[in-house]
């Protein structure tokens, strides 16, 4: 029972803190424009070569065109394939993507376990069974391989080692430990039946039986879920803002435009403190 509550708690913290972080970023004051081209929400060819509406003669007199599809496409490329790393640093991408792809597979596996738990009483569909088997095994192997490879790469590369803190090794090691304990459980239960059992327990608030290795695995996984949102491993939140709200945010402030009200509000803010340099409070002298 304690373990069940622990899982609820871990999941809650993971979701709650992630959302709280997202909300914190979303509520930050409007910043100065700081876009960087290419901006994928520009239309047509411009999104590719990095052009913008500023290329139009009298751009401000023309209707603003935005390609949300283009933005979504670029976002998916970055989310699903880590495109920027692929383009700019292929050797590192192989390692990083191995781990991330593994995590994505494990995400799918978790959903499939849930679906399996719901459908099992009326007979588990075989494709769900096999999809679970494939996603779980591939996910675990890739995540384990990727995380240990990243640790080794960071440790053996003289440049990366200079910039890697003990905490950053720990983060990777933590992921590796969770996956390895999961794989140890999997060895004794190749069909992931324990996973569906846990899911059933979570859906019905029913305690489940658990052996020693499974207990260790659940404790580690729960701890990881609690830990992630407090660290930079929560870049799944930050990345949305760096791209959408900073680098791709090029909404012009035109007279009568929708953004004007927000700008007006931002401009009305009166700071309570000040910078200390002499010229700040002594304009032009």
């Amino acid at each position, binding site marked *: 029972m304690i373990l069940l509550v622990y899982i609820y708690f871990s999941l809650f913290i993971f979701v709650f803190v992630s959302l709280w972080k997202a909300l914190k970023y979303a509520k930050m004051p*409007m910043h100065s424009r700081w*876009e960087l081209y290419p901006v994928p929400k520009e239309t047509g060819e411009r999104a590719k070569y990095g*052009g913008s509406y500023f*290329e139009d003669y009298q751009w401000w007199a023309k209707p603003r065109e935005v390609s949300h599809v283009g933005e979504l496409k670029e976002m998916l490329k970055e989310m699903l394939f880590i495109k920027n790393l692929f383009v*700019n640093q292929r050797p590192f991408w192989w390692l990083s993507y191995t781990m991330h792809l593994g995590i994505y597979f494990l995400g799918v596996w978790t959903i499939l376990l849930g679906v399996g738990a719901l459908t099992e009483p009326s007979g588990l569909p075989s494709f769900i069974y096999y999809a679970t088997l494939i996603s779980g095994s591939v996910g675990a192997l890739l995540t384990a391989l990727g995380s240990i490879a990243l640790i080794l790469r960071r440790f053996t590369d003289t440049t990366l080692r200079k910039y890697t803190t003990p905490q950053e090794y720990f983060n990777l090691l933590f992921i590796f430990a969770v996956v390895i304990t999961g794989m140890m459980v999997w060895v004794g239960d190749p069909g992931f039946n324990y996973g569906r059992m846990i899911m059933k327990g979570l859906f019905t608030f029913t305690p489940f039986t658990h052996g020693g290795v499974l207990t260790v695995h659940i404790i580690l996984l729960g701890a990881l879920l609690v830990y992630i949102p407090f660290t930079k491993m929560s870049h799944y939140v930050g990345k949305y803002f760096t791209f959408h709200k900073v680098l791709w945010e090029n909404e012009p402030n035109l007279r009568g435009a929708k953004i004007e009200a927000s700008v007006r509000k931002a401009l009305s803010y009166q700071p309570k403190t000040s910078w200390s340099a002499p010229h700040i409070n002594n304009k032009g002298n």
Partner: protein
Amino acid sequence: MKNLKPQDMGKRTEQLVQLGKLMDLPAPYDQPGMEPPLTVPKDAWKEKHCTTLDGYVGIDTLIRPQTKAEEEQVVNSFLSGLAKIFSDDVNRNFLQPLVLSIKYCAKCNTCSEACHIFKASGGQEIYRPIFRSEVLRKIVKKHLTKSGKMLGSLVGADIDINWETIARLGELAYRCNLCRRCAQACPLGLDNGLLAREIRKIFSQEMGIAPKPLHEKGTMLQLKTGSSTGLTKPAFLDMLEFMEDDIFAKTGKKIKIPVDKKGADILLTHNAGEFMTWPDNPAAFAVLFTEAGLDWTLSSDMIGYDNVNYGLWYDDVQARRVAQEQFKVAKQLGVRRIIIGECGHAHKASAVSMDRITVGEDKIPVESFLPLLWEMVNRKVLKLDPQKNNFPVTLHDPCNVVRMMGVVKPQRQILQAICPQFREMTPHGVNNYCCGGGSGFAIMQSMNFPEFRKQVGSRMKFRQILQAFQGSMDPGTPKYICAPCSNCKGAIRDILEFYHTTEKFNIHYGGLVELVVNALVDIEKPFLEFLA
């Protein structure tokens, strides 16, 4: 120092790095003796300034303290400013991008390969974009976070915070051109350029320390006299008269340059450095605008005749003050729009960075001159003969115009229409390399800083220029680098002089409008002097 790490920034050594083997240059600059050796800093500079980073002095107002108390005062002042950049009270304009860039670096080091300064230096560790950011991150961790105070080196809070650390970090913020090429490459969308700029802001806004050419002789002078060049209104008006005479002598066209014309369609603004150093550029604008029959004007009002905004590079408060005055001029004249001439950072300042400091009636639309110029060329408003420009021409993309603003195509369309031998640099467009003069470097002339700019900062650009003209290096063939930006022109002028490239290989530089005027059918003599 061997195997240098960010933690070493606080160590009391004479100089962290000594530049040696730089990136190779292509032929004919791949031969020995084509480049003077790097120098060492003078003892007097070592005593007075911070030369302990790489031997160069970028911040001429950063003075080495004489007593322990003075040292502590500098450190405390920095730490006070550090806390302020994370404040949602005084740093609202950059809080979100700053926090994101500080928090999420995955240390993948992708940024290094994108940085022209790191590459040009032969891979010096301190010039990796992540090196500077990591020093800042460590100070933030140590001074501002609970985890850093409790766990120290385990979470990366392992750096000594003393005068040397702070002074070196300040200097290091002026080894970045703020070109943001590294941010384009970052898989997490983080921005080392922004972090360098935030360090500059702490120095200026909190500590009152900024390079003289940017602050005292830059924004402060501009707010006082109207221009960072010191150009006053009477001198400006005299200059225009001289320019009208010069236009007549060169083109045979009698032009009256409109000044302070109320209710004009266009307020054209220039970098005042153009009037002083490259008057052919504003003259060419005058010829083309008159030829096209545009309803335009210049302003002789305080700040109206100088569109620069050096605040963009180091100080938000100054940037805003300058921009407010510039926008006020446009409003008072009652113009319909502001057109920015050939100045890259003025493009970014007026159209992008300062876009959200005015609303309602105060908001006057800002445009780049490039779409307008392409409109004039494309609609054949101007009668042009491309054969007059039949020599190799390459284009330098000012970072502020392309990467920061997305104006990429019009300048290419113009060059393709009027220059039969136009060729691109590699890479170009939004992937271009900075000229090495960006973020104030072009005007920072104190002590040995120009050496750093010319031999390291501008090195990648010089390589690109040479590569663009490979096969045409014969001194009998004139060649032209089109650089539609004052600061870029300044940096390119300096490298061409430094490497004697003009005298040896007949390579020239200038703006875009000069090429267009040179192609005008009804002008008898070449407008470009090197063709005369």
